[in-house]
């Protein structure tokens, strides 16, 4: 199987997975009592009306009295035409809410991801190259510090130092500055720093330990005998094989951090990103928005895993397309 066929197969598989998740979501929703119907019934009861009739009216209004397969097709059409409904907790369409959140999330997660992917392996390989020296210990200490300290706490501390005491960054996130501007870079610097320290630790450790294996590999001696400089040897011959196991770590880690960490950091720094959109939707029991966010994260996760699979095969030619 060639690479092109492989990619096609993976993409199709990703589509199938997302479709299965979408379907499961529908079944869960169909099985759960609809809060709107309950609300209508409660209200009717409070006002002395007939709760059953009110519930029936509410069901009718929302098309819930249709047969299951009709509702399912309707639901599928809505999902895939991006007709995700109205987000009551924000008074805007769900897709707009998610797009707005993504717009702000992307502004810090793109530099965050790039820095993590670039710096993590670099520092890790550097650490391995100088294993057990003070440089290694410093890098290791930094990795564990970033890994151990809670992001939101670290964020608040840095915000106090740089925002309040030194007053070099704004405390209130300003959405009105252009994306590509110095002001935006300044206000995003601390959140990105906090996130990078949080995520880089694991990447550094994995790459340090993986590359420790490769830097003593026979092909490193070959490279040396060829007259390859140490820098080039590390950059090409150690880094590349290290990236193979690392790509799994990175994608998994970033996806996990995407929701958890980013929410706390968004809260601390007041960035109106996807994490806060989702969290507030949950708090406000905004069913449409929660569903939309779930779907969005499903697609992101499926896409992330797809990328991981593809990167994996590109990085490690030994992995056969047929086996995975």
């Amino acid at each position, binding site marked *: 199987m060639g690479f092109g066929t492989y990619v096609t197969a993976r993409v199709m598989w990703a589509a199938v997975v997302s479709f299965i998740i979408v379907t499961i979501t529908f079944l869960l929703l169909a099985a759960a009592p609809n809060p709107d119907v309950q609300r209508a019934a409660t209200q009717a009861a409070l006002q002395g009306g007939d709760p059953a009739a009110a519930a029936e009216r509410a069901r009718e209004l929302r098309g819930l009295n249709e047969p299951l397969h009709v509702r399912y097709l309707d639901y599928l059409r809505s999902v895939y035409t991006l007709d995700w409904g109205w987000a009551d907790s924000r008074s805007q369409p769900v897709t707009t809410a998610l797009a707005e959140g993504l717009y702000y999330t992307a502004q810090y997660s793109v530099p965050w991801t790039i820095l993590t992917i670039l710096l993590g392996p670099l520092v890790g390989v550097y650490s391995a190259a100088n294993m057990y020296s003070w440089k290694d210990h410093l890098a290791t200490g930094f990795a564990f510090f970033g890994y151990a300290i809670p992001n939101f706490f670290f964020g608040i501390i840095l915000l106090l130092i740089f925002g309040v005491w030194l007053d070099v960054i704004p405390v209130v996130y300003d959405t009105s500055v252009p994306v590509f501007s110095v002001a935006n870079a300044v206000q995003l610097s601390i959140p990105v720093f906090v996130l990078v320290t949080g995520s880089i630790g694991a990447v550094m450790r994995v790459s340090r330990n993986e590359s420790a294996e490769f830097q003593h*590999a026979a092909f490193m*001696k*070959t*490279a040396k*005998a*060829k007259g*390859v400089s140490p820098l080039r040897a590390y950059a090409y011959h150690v880094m590349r*094989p290290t990236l193979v196991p690392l790509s799994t770590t990175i994608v998994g880690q970033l996806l996990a951090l995407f929701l958890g960490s980013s929410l706390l950091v968004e809260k601390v720094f007041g960035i109106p990103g996807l994490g806060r959109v989702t969290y507030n939707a949950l708090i406000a029991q905004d069913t449409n928005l929660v569903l939309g966010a779930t779907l969005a994260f499903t697609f992101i996760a499926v896409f992330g895993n797809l990328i991981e699979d593809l990167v994996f095969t590109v990085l*490690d030619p*030994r992995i056969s397309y047929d086996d995975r």
Partner: protein
Amino acid sequence: MTDDASPLLAVEGLTTTFDTDDGQLVAVDGIEFTVEAGETVCLVGESGSGKTVATESITRIVDSPGSVEGSVRFGGRDLLSMSEPERRAIRGYEIAHVFQNPQDALNHCYTVGWQVVEALQVHEDVADETARSRAIDLLDRVGLANASTLFDDYPHELSGGQKQRVMIAMALIGDPDLLIADEPTTALDVTVQAQILRLLDDLRREFDMGILLVTHDLGVVAAVADRVVVMYAGKVMERGSVLDVFERPAHPYTRGLLDCLPGVGGTEGGIPGTLPDPLDPPDGCRFAARCAYAEDACRTGEQPAEIKTDPGHHASCIHYRPDRDESVLEDAGREPTGSDRGADELPNDGVSTDD
């Protein structure tokens, strides 16, 4: 670039030590030998006698040594005293290496072509296309079929013999003056071993380069070597032309080794005993403990200085001192080994494919 007057490679007093937790390990202890342009010198000895460390010390690619001392003169320049970047310019360009195990010697993440080309492009500013065609030529020359498609294959898609041919191509792409081949056939199937050795010999002639071949297979030595250096426990026991050494082995150790050759007769099953502890080498001759002719004098002082037994033939054994009678060594009554019969045994079926 080589001075006709001086040898291509002259190693003198080369000493390589490692710092271990148990103390200082002297892996190579003051060895001396030369390689002339265009000739094949074989470095023989048991496993652990320091052959590999000795060859890797020449261009200092040995892994984290405690120290590498002595003098390694290559074309008149001292490789040990020059800076690392200067040495780097020589590695893979003037002195190339081929290693024992081709399975791990290639990086699994890159195509073989990429890795061959890298060996050239780190030294010469060659355009990608030129480098590619040169590499394909060379891959073809080392006997790999479909060189142009194989160029884009990954190492895991190749057999062991093919990989070793790739390693040889990689070594040759810089047109080196000296090729150091460290047991290049050990890891390979017997049928392939001979092909590789024949290839090396052909290439030596074609590229007019010196080869320093590390082996513990005296059959190989007999087949390809011009001269032989016998090492034992980090010391050179005997060196000389292949005829001298095979016909008139001087050192008891060499004789022991030759006795081990199957079909040559003598005591099959090897020399009794084991290598001395490299962390705590014995006084006197390193081989004394296993030597049938050892005397008390063999067990004191340093390893005996080399003594010329024939022109160009040296041995490190006190029995050759002028005041000694070397004939005691003949007591065993063994016959000197015959000719370089190994050469006749080399298969003649060419080197086109391995599998």
